[in-house]
């Protein structure tokens, strides 16, 4: 739905009668009625009253009327399938109005406005992103404000062609080759006509006399001309094909490279919103689609248009009456059979889609072989498989049968045009108004026409598909860099590692804050432990510190410099991360350790591994430091992976170090080794550590206890223990579960 900026008249009247002469400061429109069905409700902050109403007849119906002074806070409650704007009234949450996910953005803004009003702050007026096209109401892409329907397709095409601009000489050459090729293609039927009329079946007295005298030599010349034209045509065709193949490949290579480069710099927010599969399909399918249009589609389009013009010119010169007779049915058949083609396309699309689903089922089953065997679920797997396979069978039979039926019918219809020519042209020929040569040339030309005509009837659909692929690619290329975009300029000589969070509020979706007004400081070289239940916001603090995201409100400072102003590459160069899920890539152990510092010498790598308690196990491997770790390091144990990541961090020599649950899922001895390695790594660096085992945070200088996105306690271990607050109760719980673990083994 599109969002209106004004209250409907009936609601205006209602507001005016409820709160006379009040200024309406906030307006919101919901897409659900009070009964929860699709409908309309309006929220207005009029004067100091919050009114929710429904347009109804002359004056709207009032549903809720709250004094603003009763409201202490406004937030958004996530429901199943939608959300509700709610207000805290005297300690109790009251739902003001529900809305579907289509309006999350709109209500995110309204929440901020109402919340500010309730707290007596000035009402902000953040810009609202356009989510639907103002003209046609179609949903826009997530990172684009360009409507795929209303945007001029020409603009996309021009932009696509701009990628071909560096190769314009080759493009012009291709065009010229096409023109010559088409002209040469028009020759054979004409030569055939000459062959028949002058040599084989002369129909006038002079022609007969000429044939008797020079027939054989003329025959020789004509056949030679036929041969030369077809050889030449073939040569030109090969030349042209080779150029277009190169051109299409090169342009889509350029686009793919631009896309991949962009993917490296896109913000985390972008990746949160787009599943990996969708991004991969941009790189593979969509760029393939673009290559199709450039390498095959456009040349094909141009040759076909030239052919149609050339052939029409020829047949009209030979005999315009017969030309009309032949062309009209040809055009009718080509346009009339369009639905058949569409049906066939749809059938094949359905088939390919089911093929994909079949593929993923088999892939999934093969990845779970062990699980299937362990639970002896072969029979149920076979049933699941059977359903999917039958689905595929049906789709394939339907597609092939449609093809098998439609295609012969199409040929029959196409052939009907030439039947007309045979009949009426035959009559003309018998009556002597048309030579046999003309008739044969005519049939030859007609045969050249159907392909291009058919192509033209589908060209709209086909171009639109290809341009959609191009649009999807450009959508990524145009996506904002988000936090990376505002690249800071400041490159400090030295980062000491003093960290400050000042009034930071942040949510992965802006209307759902995960961190609320978080402030704390960490001295350089100190270790800060982050404590809290899962989902409390610990990892979010880390994400902001790494600047994977920017704070929505407030700022983060490093050595007193706002993180937004700091050069990202300089900062990240001094930031080390050891995560719960160790991230390794398919390469050797040495390459994995040196990932953040490719220029490191092998001895440095070994020294780092030694410090991380990794050297011993590495050298024990068959290929030592040259051992391949496999995809995501699957050939290594959890503890080994962890220590490689620590070695990497050691080599990186960061000023600010982040440790996230580094000792989860390992046995005691390994944990001991990892702890040792970490203790060496932490020495002298600002460290942020998250650990579920609170005992591992005992060495931290300070602990930050986070609860529901807010800082509830801050201080050293002993301070917080004495305080007997949240940390103390967590510690208590921790002791008990450790005891259960110890007893349970």
């Amino acid at each position: 739905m599109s969002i209106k900026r004004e209250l409907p008249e009936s609601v205006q009247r209602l507001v005016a009668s409820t709160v006379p002469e009040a200024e309406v400061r906030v307006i919101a429109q919901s897409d659900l009625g009070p009964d929860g069905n699709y409908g309309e409700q309006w929220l207005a902050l009029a004067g100091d009253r919050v009114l929710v109403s429904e347009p109804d007849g002359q004056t709207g119906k009032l549903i809720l009327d709250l004094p603003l002074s009763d409201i202490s806070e406004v937030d958004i409650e996530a429901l199943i399938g939608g959300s509700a704007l709610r207000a805290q009234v005297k300690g109790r949450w009251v739902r003001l109005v529900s809305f579907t996910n289509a309006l999350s953005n709109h209500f995110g803004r309204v929440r901020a406005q109402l919340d500010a009003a309730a707290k007596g702050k000035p009402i902000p007026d953040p810009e609202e992103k356009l989510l639907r096209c103002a003209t046609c109401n179609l949903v826009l892409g997530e990172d684009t404000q360009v409507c795929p329907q209303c945007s001029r397709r020409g603009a996309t095409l021009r932009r696509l062609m701009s990628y071909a601009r560096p190769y314009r000489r080759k493009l012009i050459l291709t065009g010229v080759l096409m023109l010559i090729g088409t002209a040469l293609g028009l020759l054979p039927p004409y030569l055939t006509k000459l062959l028949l009329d002058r040599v084989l079946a002369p129909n006038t007295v002079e022609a007969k006399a000429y044939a008797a005298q020079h027939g054989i030599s003329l025959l020789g010349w004509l056949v030679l001309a036929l041969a030369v034209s077809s050889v030449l045509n073939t040569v030109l065709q090969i030349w042209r094909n080779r150029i277009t193949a190169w051109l299409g490949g090169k342009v889509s290579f350029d686009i793919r490279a631009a896309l991949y480069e962009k993917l490296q710099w896109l913000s985390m927010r972008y990746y949160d919103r787009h599943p990996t599969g969708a991004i991969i399909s941009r790189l593979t399918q969509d760029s393939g689609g673009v290559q199709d249009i450039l390498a095959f589609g456009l040349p094909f389009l141009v040759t076909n248009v030239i052919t149609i013009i050339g052939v029409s010119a020829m047949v009209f010169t030979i005999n315009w009456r017969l030309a009309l007779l032949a062309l009209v049915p040809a055009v009718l058949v080509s346009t009339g059979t369009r639905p058949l083609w569409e049906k066939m396309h749809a059938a094949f699309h359905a088939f390919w889609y089911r093929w994909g689903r079949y593929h993923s089922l088999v892939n999934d089953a093969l990845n779970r072989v062990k699980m299937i065997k362990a639970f002896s679920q072969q029979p149920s797997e076979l049933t699941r498989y059977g359903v999917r396979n039958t689905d595929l069978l049906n789709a394939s039979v339907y597609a092939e049968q449609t093809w098998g039926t439609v295609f012969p019918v199409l040929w029959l219809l196409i052939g009907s045009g030439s039947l007309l020519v045979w009949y009426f042209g035959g009559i003309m020929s018998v009556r002597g108004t048309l030579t046999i040569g003309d008739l044969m040339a005519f049939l030859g030309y007609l045969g050249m026409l159907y392909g291009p005509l058919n192509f033209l009837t589908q060209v709209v659909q086909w171009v639109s598909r290809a341009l959609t692929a191009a649009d999807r690619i450009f959508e990524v290329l145009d996506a904002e860099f988000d936090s990376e975009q505002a690249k800071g300029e400041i490159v400090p000589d030295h980062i000491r590692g003093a960290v400050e969070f000042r009034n930071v509020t942040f949510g992965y979706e802006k209307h759902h804050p995960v961190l609320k007004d978080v402030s704390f400081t960490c001295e350089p070289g100190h270790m800060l432990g982050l404590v809290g239940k899962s989902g409390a916001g610990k990892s979010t603090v880390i994400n902001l510190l790494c600047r994977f995201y920017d704070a929505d409100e407030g700022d983060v400072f490093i050595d007193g410099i706002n993180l937004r102003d700091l050069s990202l590459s300089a900062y990240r160069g001094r930031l080390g991360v050891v995560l719960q899920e160790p991230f390794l890539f398919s390469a050797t152990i040495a390459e994995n350790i040196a990932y953040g510092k490719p220029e490191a010498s092998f001895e440095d790598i070994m020294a780092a591994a030694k410090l991380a308690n990794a050297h011993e196990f590495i050298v024990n491997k068959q290929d030592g430091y040259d051992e391949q770790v496999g995809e995501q390091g699957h050939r290594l144990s959890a503890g080994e992976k962890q220590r490689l990541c620590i070695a990497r961090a050691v080599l990186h020599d960061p000023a600010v170090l982040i440790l996230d649950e580094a000792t989860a899922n390992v046995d005691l001895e390994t944990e001991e080794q990892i702890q040792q390695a970490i203790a060496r790594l932490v020495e002298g660096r600002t460290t942020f550590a998250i650990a579920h085992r609170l005992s591992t945070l005992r060495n931290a200088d300070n602990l930050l206890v986070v609860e529901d996105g807010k800082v509830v306690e801050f201080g050293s271990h002993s301070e917080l223990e004495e305080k007997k607050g949240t940390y103390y109760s967590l510690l208590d719980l921790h002791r008990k579960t450790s005891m259960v673990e110890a007893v349970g083994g």
Partner: protein
Amino acid sequence: MASGSVTPKELETLRYLDPEQVKVYRAESGWLYATIGDELTVLAPRFMRARPLADPNLYISIRGAGTNGKEFGLLREWRRLDPESRRLVQQELDERYLHVRIERILSLKDYGGLQSCSLETDRGPREVTFRDVRDNVVYSGAARVLLSDAEGNRYDIPDITALDRRSRALLSRIL
């Protein structure tokens, strides 16, 4: 408000509640309460469906306030609650679950990558845009299809074979 220590037994077994022991009411202050027998009263309880798709009216979980509120018990047949409690639970469920069922598909246009669709649902008519609908569909069980539109809303077709012919034909063009 519920309080008291949690024994291991309570942590490991489900607790089914007798509908006759459960009372839900709204106090004059506006607060919603649920009492379970004589033993406890839950302030601002939340009612969640255990199987919102397969069997929305069986197994209602009564939970504490807040998204991390713990479960106090499960109602197997909540319709046997007294009328006032039932009305309040129904109201709470209706407000929380904005579940939409597609009843008919009236028209469908494919713009190559974007499909615009005019639907008739149990919550009224709705114009919907799907983006690459084949990437945003979930097949659940034998005949259930869940479609997600470009704005993050979900639409349920509980039994695709039960749709009318035209709706199925339109759907088969994009699925």
